[in-house]
């Protein structure tokens, strides 16, 4: 089908770009060799790219604003990593354990998204921004005060005070230690796993957008009253986009923390949420490859500056780069260029069509 190929060309270019980047980095690493600094950034970049894509599904595709996406990342990170530690003996195969842990993280984050969505998404307005903002802060406090341990008798929980450590039996371990977070994490995340997550995220988002559900989500974004007038249950489809996004953010959180040896709740704060939003806005709302580029570049930038001893100018350069990127992405010439390449130019209406009448009402 010629029509389908044309419509999906941009999507396949995006998949291809990600795979090509992966191969190039692998080849470069094998021949020249990457510095350990860059190597340490590969998994975080994949995690932030996934975060940006997930947030873009909410902001760009469903038209809602979330100011607490780091909260979902946090839920996924803590539940996924705790699960990985708990499953250490049950699943010896590291990649499988990683996959299971990320799935568990995604499930918990999806549940959190669902619980937030129930009261908020039936409302029309900016309520989601306010509630997710609060959610991000609440989740941070919760994980700062939560103690979870595991021994032969099962899970032990306590809140505010660590009564778990004393109750743990022989061979038991403290999974989550309040403000100390999770420590002694086995590093099982890998660049390959990260790229697989990014590709999976892209497939989910692109396939969702080009389906019945995706059209309903975008219709509700463009005009809520009209969407309801043609029988689209707006709350349901906004929920679908939001929960999917939360689940992807949870998986990204799991991937991210399992590349570190320790993680604390304060890592996923309001600044992180805003950083992810900056990736999305910079890359263009609803523009997935834009999110990939901006998230990768802006995660690399501070480290590159450090490398070239421009550390003290870091924030200055960061700001200048933001401004340049915004100017460039808004340049009509470059937009045209990109649209020509991806074949996604919006056709103008035929000239023979009539002139517009005066708007009414």
């Amino acid at each position, binding site marked *: 089908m010629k029509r389908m190929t044309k419509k999906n060309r941009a999507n396949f270019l995006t998949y291809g770009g990600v795979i090509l980047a992966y191969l190039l980095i692998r080849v470069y690493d094998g021949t020249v060799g990457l510095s350990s600094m860059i190597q340490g950034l590969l998994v975080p970049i994949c995690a932030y790219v996934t975060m940006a894509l997930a947030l873009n599904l909410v902001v760009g595709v469903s038209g809602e604003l979330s100011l607490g996406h780091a909260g979902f990342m946090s839920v996924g990170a803590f539940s996924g990593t705790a699960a990985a530690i708990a499953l250490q003996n049950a699943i010896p195969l590291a990649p499988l354990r990683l996959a299971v842990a990320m799935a568990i993280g995604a499930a918990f984050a999806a549940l959190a998204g669902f619980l937030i969505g129930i009261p908020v998404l039936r409302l029309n307005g900016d309520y989601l921004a306010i509630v997710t903002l609060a959610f991000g802060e609440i989740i941070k406090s919760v994980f700062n005060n939560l103690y979870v341990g595991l021994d032969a008798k099962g899970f032990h929980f306590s809140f505010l005070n660590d009564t778990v450590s004393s109750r743990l039996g022989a061979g038991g371990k403290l999974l989550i230690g309040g403000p100390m977070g999770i420590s002694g994490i086995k590093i099982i995340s890998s660049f390959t796993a990260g790229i697989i997550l990014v590709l999976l995220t892209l*497939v*989910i988002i692109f*396939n*969702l957008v*080009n*389906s*019945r*559900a*995706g*059209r*309903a989500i*975008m*219709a509700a*974004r*463009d*005009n809520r*009253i*009209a*969407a*309801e*007038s*043609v*029988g*689209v*249950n*707006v709350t349901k489809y906004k929920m*679908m986009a939001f929960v999917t996004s939360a689940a992807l953010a949870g998986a990204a959180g799991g991937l991210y923390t399992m590349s570190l040896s320790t993680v604390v709740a304060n890592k996923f704060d309001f600044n992180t949420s805003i950083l992810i939003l900056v990736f999305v806005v910079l890359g263009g709302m609803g523009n997935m490859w834009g999110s990939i580029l901006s998230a990768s570049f802006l995660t690399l930038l501070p480290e590159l500056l450090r490398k070239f001893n421009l550390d003290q100018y870091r924030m200055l350069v960061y700001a200048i780069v933001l401004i340049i990127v915004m100017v460039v992405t808004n340049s009509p010439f470059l937009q045209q260029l990109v649209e020509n390449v991806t074949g996604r130019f*919006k*056709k*103008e*209406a*035929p000239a023979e*069509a*009539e*002139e*517009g*009448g*005066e*708007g*009414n*009402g």
Partner: protein
Amino acid sequence: MADRVQRRPATKLVPVPSTNKIPERDVDKTPILECRHLGIDFGGLTAVNEFNMAIGRTEIAGLIGPNGAGKTTVFNLLTKVYQPTRGTILLDGLDTHSMNSVQVNRAGIARTFQNIRLFGNLSVEDNVKVGLHNQVRYGMFQGVCRLPGYWRGERVAHERAMELLSIFDMQDLADHQAGSLPYGAQRRLEIVRALATNPSLLLLDEPAAGMNPSETAELMDNIVKIRDTFHIAVLLIEHDMSLVMGICEGICVLNFGEIIAKGTPEEIKNDPQVIEAYLGKKREV
């Protein structure tokens, strides 16, 4: 002021003597739509009051009246954009009291909007496909995993969308962005999108607004064609009298939220109250 949200009292189904002229072929059939004592207040303002009307199953009916008479408000009541303060709406004999906009559409009412409300960033074809949302169904999982249900559903949706677009010869515009269409085409697309929901009653709010006379004539033909091919009822609001008098079988005139006249085009044309509402009271010399 009693700003408290009041629950609408349960309405008694008192039959209302309908003075509508229902077309002969629809006599003896239950009307597709019947409004009884329908009314709504916005704060202190009574926008619509004692609105009684019945529409036959394949009737083309008109709702006219001066600006601000409450015509669009009637549409908003029928489609539950607003909940009525008073009265009953019977769709095919079924009380829509507890329904919301989505459920009313599924029950069979589709509409267009006076101020166009298209999905501006979607393509023309996708706008129609959103209209087919409840006609061609498959789950989110089928879509994300591209299971056979997805391919089957998309093929049927594409065929149906093209078929519907062909009513107005708009197949060539299928890939265009809806928001970039000229005004007249946007109005036609709204009609196609409404038809895609497979309604039994189509509400058109000023379908000819901003169209030139030749386009209006074409639109008139198409409205009749739609009624004849889909066998549905059409209720339209229009200021263009040539269109209303040309195709409507029954007309209802609204002024200040109240019905001031009902009847055939001939009767409406000669009704002194209607003439007064439109042209003002004749000054006594």
